[in-house]
């Protein structure tokens, strides 16, 4: 029965292809419903936002590293935000920090990473013609685009963009009197995020549906590449947590505009006592972090999935502990929902809650540790090829370790008392979430560029890009641990007002210089990316000699991905260097019956079953053919 339906499904696709509609420019490049084009749209938009987010961080790094510098030369861009004596306005500094965080977390690492690769890879790797709903997928991108336009506009308004930190805690974000960014800038932030949440939900529903329903024949869940597992679980997390952010934002809108008191109580500001009573700013923090913490895994899991795939391929070795990897990702998914309050140990919430969340938080370190050990064991006795994608994956594992270990300090509420909201936290999440996810994004781009554009990126430029970025990231974020232990608070315009923090000007200068150089190194990537898109060497069909399905498509797959039938899958995706096999990889589409020399004992058992299925399928095909004629 199942085989019949699959066969007829692919027949229908055949018919579809016979009278292929011709795309014009608008339907092909702009309002495309092809998941591959939508993935590329997310990628290019993500790159645009990464540049903006990076530039914003350079401006505030200039302030932190060179507080005495005359920034008059920025006046043509920043206008009134440069004070008459050539300094950065402190309120604009806070707005920069806020926008840098918002842009990087949501627009670059959520949309740019998950949006790009979930869209691009899910249908290609599970063997589907497209997403379950191409139209919803298109909407997902355009909601994201609108969200970006609104956020971009907010950068240029007179009162400045939102300035209450990327977490936009009320009452600061609710009261225009408290900071000018909480006026129109904050309104635009909320509107933009609403569109963004809609985009994420449309995308997430699609990813989940597609993975569950549209897998090709033979592609059971236990044969899914780890990338797909990661994207699938990411979408589940997003679907469950983004609506909570929406409700948090909605209540904030009510407080801001309609006089309610969800988050506001007993406030005296600007010379007047506000009428609001009974609200709780801590409520907002609970709601925000109920998304905010899973969000960390929304940006991290896809990167880990990509890394698993790239490391296995370029180690020419199966990923070690495929099942353990899935279980640990499942564990992370579930636990990610019950650790949010570790961001709030000193928020004034009941200390008993702090104890509970400390236990839960440190449990989540275990699956993370398992993942690291599995990566290491995958490298062990491999035959490693250092493609740029592989380099970035190894870099990711390094950041994941460095940033993950500092999480053990911060998850411990007693130690967190001192470290909370210091640069130690900044160092921690920039390594484990920011840089690790960014490296996953880069690994993915280098690895799947040939599939996206049919051309290769230049490997040497990739090596230079990797080493400059890898060393650069450590030079930027490692020193922050020291100033964090020394107690330097986050989101400070300047530290010279305090005795205890009136030092490390040299280290801050060093960090700023490293940040500028690291950002500069990204220009190498930008050049490589856009140049290779048009002038790169034409790629071979399977340049990394990989086993997964996307490499069985033509060099430039059309809408529908495979010109003929969708290939069936007969094995898991990690048959690398199998003993007895001639090549060091066996694609998923090669039946076990075709490789008796390399089959493991339990696989030999499956051969008989497989032969039966193939025979049955052929009978159905023959029957269909004869009924047609």
């Amino acid at each position, binding site marked *: 029965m199942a085989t019949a339906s699959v066969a007829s499904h692919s027949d229908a696709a055949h018919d579809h292809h016979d009278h292929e509609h011709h795309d014009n420019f608008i339907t092909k490049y702009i309002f495309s419903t092809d998941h591959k084009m939508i993935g590329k749209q997310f990628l290019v938009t993500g790159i645009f936002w990464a540049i903006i987010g990076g530039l914003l961080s350079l401006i505030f790094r200039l302030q932190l590293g060179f507080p005495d510098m005359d920034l008059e030369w920025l006046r043509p861009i920043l206008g009134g935000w440069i004070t008459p004596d050539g300094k950065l306005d402190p309120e604009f500094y*806070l707005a920069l920090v806020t926008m840098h965080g918002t842009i990087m977390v949501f627009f670059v690492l959520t949309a740019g990473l998950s949006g790009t690769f979930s869209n691009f890879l899910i249908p290609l790797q599970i063997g589907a013609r497209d997403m379950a709903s191409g139209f919803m997928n298109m909407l997902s991108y355009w909601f994201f685009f609108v969200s970006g336009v609104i956020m971009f506009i907010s950068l240029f308004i007179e009162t400045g963009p939102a*300035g209450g*930190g990327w977490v936009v*805690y009320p*009452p*600061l974000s609710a009261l225009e009197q*408290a900071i000018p960014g909480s006026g129109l800038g904050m309104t635009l932030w909320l509107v933009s995020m609403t569109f963004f949440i809609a985009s994420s939900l449309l995308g997430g529903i699609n990813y989940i549906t597609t993975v569950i329903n549209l897998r090709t024949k033979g592609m059971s869940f236990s044969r899914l590449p780890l990338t797909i597992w990661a994207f699938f679980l990411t979408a589940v997390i997003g679907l469950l947590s983004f609506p909570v952010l929406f409700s948090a934002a909605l209540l904030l809108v009510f407080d801001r505009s309609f006089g309610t008191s969800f988050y506001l109580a*007993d*406030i*005296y500001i600007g010379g007047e*006592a506000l009428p609001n*009573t009974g609200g*709780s*700013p801590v409520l907002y923090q609970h709601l925000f972090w109920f998304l905010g913490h899973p969000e960390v895994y929304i940006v991290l899991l896809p990167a880990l999935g990509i890394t698993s795939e790239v490391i296995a391929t370029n*180690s020419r*070795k199966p990923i*070690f*502990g495929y099942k*353990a990897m899935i279980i640990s990702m499942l564990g992370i998914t579930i636990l990610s929902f019950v650790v949010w309050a570790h961001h709030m140990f*000193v*928020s*004034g919430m009941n200390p008993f809650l*702090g104890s509970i969340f400390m236990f839960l938080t440190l449990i989540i370190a*275990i699956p993370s540790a*398992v993942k690291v*050990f599995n990566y*290491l*064991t995958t490298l*062990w*006795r*491999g*035959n*490693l090829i*250092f493609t740029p994608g592989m*380099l970035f994956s*190894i870099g990711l594992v390094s950041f994941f370790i460095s940033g993950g*270990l500092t999480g*053990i*300090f911060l998850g*411990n509420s*007693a*130690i967190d*008392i001192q470290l*909370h*909201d210091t640069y130690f936290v900044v160092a921690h999440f920039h390594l484990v979430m920011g840089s690790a996810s960014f490296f996953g994004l880069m690994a993915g781009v280098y690895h799947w560029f040939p599939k996206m554009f049919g051309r290769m990126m230049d490997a*040497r430029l990739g090596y230079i890009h990797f080493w400059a970025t890898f060393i650069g990231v*450590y030079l930027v974020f490692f020193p922050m641990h*020291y100033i964090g232990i*020394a*107690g330097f*608070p*986050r*989101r*400070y315009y300047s530290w010279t*007002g305090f*005795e*205890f923090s009136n030092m490390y000007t040299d280290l801050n200068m060093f960090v700023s210089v490293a940040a500028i150089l690291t950002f500069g190194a990204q220009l190498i990537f930008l050049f490589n990316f856009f140049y290779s898109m048009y002038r790169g060497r034409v790629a071979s069909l399977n340049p990394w000699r990989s086993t997964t399905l996307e490499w069985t498509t033509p060099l430039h797959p059309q809408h529908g991905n495979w010109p003929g039938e969708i290939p069936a899958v007969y094995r898991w995706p990690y048959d*690398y*260097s*199998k003993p007895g096999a001639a090549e060091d990889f066996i694609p998923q589409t090669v039946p076990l019956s075709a490789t008796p020399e390399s089959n493991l004992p339990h696989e030999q058992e499956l051969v008989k079953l497989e032969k039966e299925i193939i025979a049955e399928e052929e009978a159905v095909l023959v029957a269909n053919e004869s009924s047609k004629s």
Partner: protein
Amino acid sequence: MYGFLIAVGVLLLMSIIWMVYRIQTLVSVVKGSDKKIASGSNKINALMFVLFLVGATILMFWYSIKEFDNYQLPIASEHGEVTDRLFWITMAVTGVVFLITHVLLFWFPYKYQYDEKRKAAFYPDNNKLEVIWTIVPAIALTVLVIGGWKAWSDITAPAPENSHVVEILGYQFAWEVRYPGMDNTLGEHDYRLTSATNVSGVDFTDKNSLDDFTSPVVVIPKGEPVLFKIRARDVLHSVFAPHMRLKMDAVPGMPTRFWFTATKTTDEMRRETGNDEFVYEIACTEICGRGHNAMRKEIRVVEPEEFRKWMADQKPYIVNNPALVSDLPEELKELAEITISEYK
């Protein structure tokens, strides 16, 4: 002119890089090295990982040792000793893991770099290994958590009865300190009573508030428990006293608290650090607007006798500003006037 020259220089440099790039691409095409599975760069990349490992390790140890006294702030509270010990125990445990995993992560690429004569080991799983490295971190983490949990429970336990109460109110952009006076009980407050002369919104119809006083510096005794009652009146703030290892958010509408015992007076710390200017400070660590980085308050830790003497010398709000009690009901006003006359 300089701008123009720099622009020309940058253009020249970029065109040279461009030419080098094109030449090396063409050379690699001619040599056919782009057809190979792993080119000569593979060896260089493998070597780079080892160099990075060695270089970064040396740099890390050198800087961590050299700067230790700078980033390790002296500790001045009882619980600070505990949390710092936990910090350094965690540092030791994670440090070992950090080093071992990184040695493996960077050494494997060198050791197992591509060799076409070799085939990678087909090693898809090993349940025993998986179980071991699930359980070992679990045990290590449990030990760390239990240490943290004990410390956390002690720190957040109710303050001892005899604690000296100090109210700290955060507002844009300063801290207002209020002492309960001799009765060690703070008077009621109501944010609607806030004014330029009544920063904390003290309710003077409450008898307990008549002896409340403010101070430009937080003065506390050494060796006796002190309870900070923390409030905010506009947006979130956070009281952070780095040497006391103390941090607690100040939340509008929800009073918070943190109690601790200082272990060294300011003078002792000055001698110990050899810095005559040394002061304990309070900073704000929750973003609160333009002046977030300027919410400084000094803490002065003194010997208990000196503290008592200082307390006795302080004048209540109503003594410094009798207008605060001018419109109180008759009987309270009388009481207030008695208080005022006592302090005169």
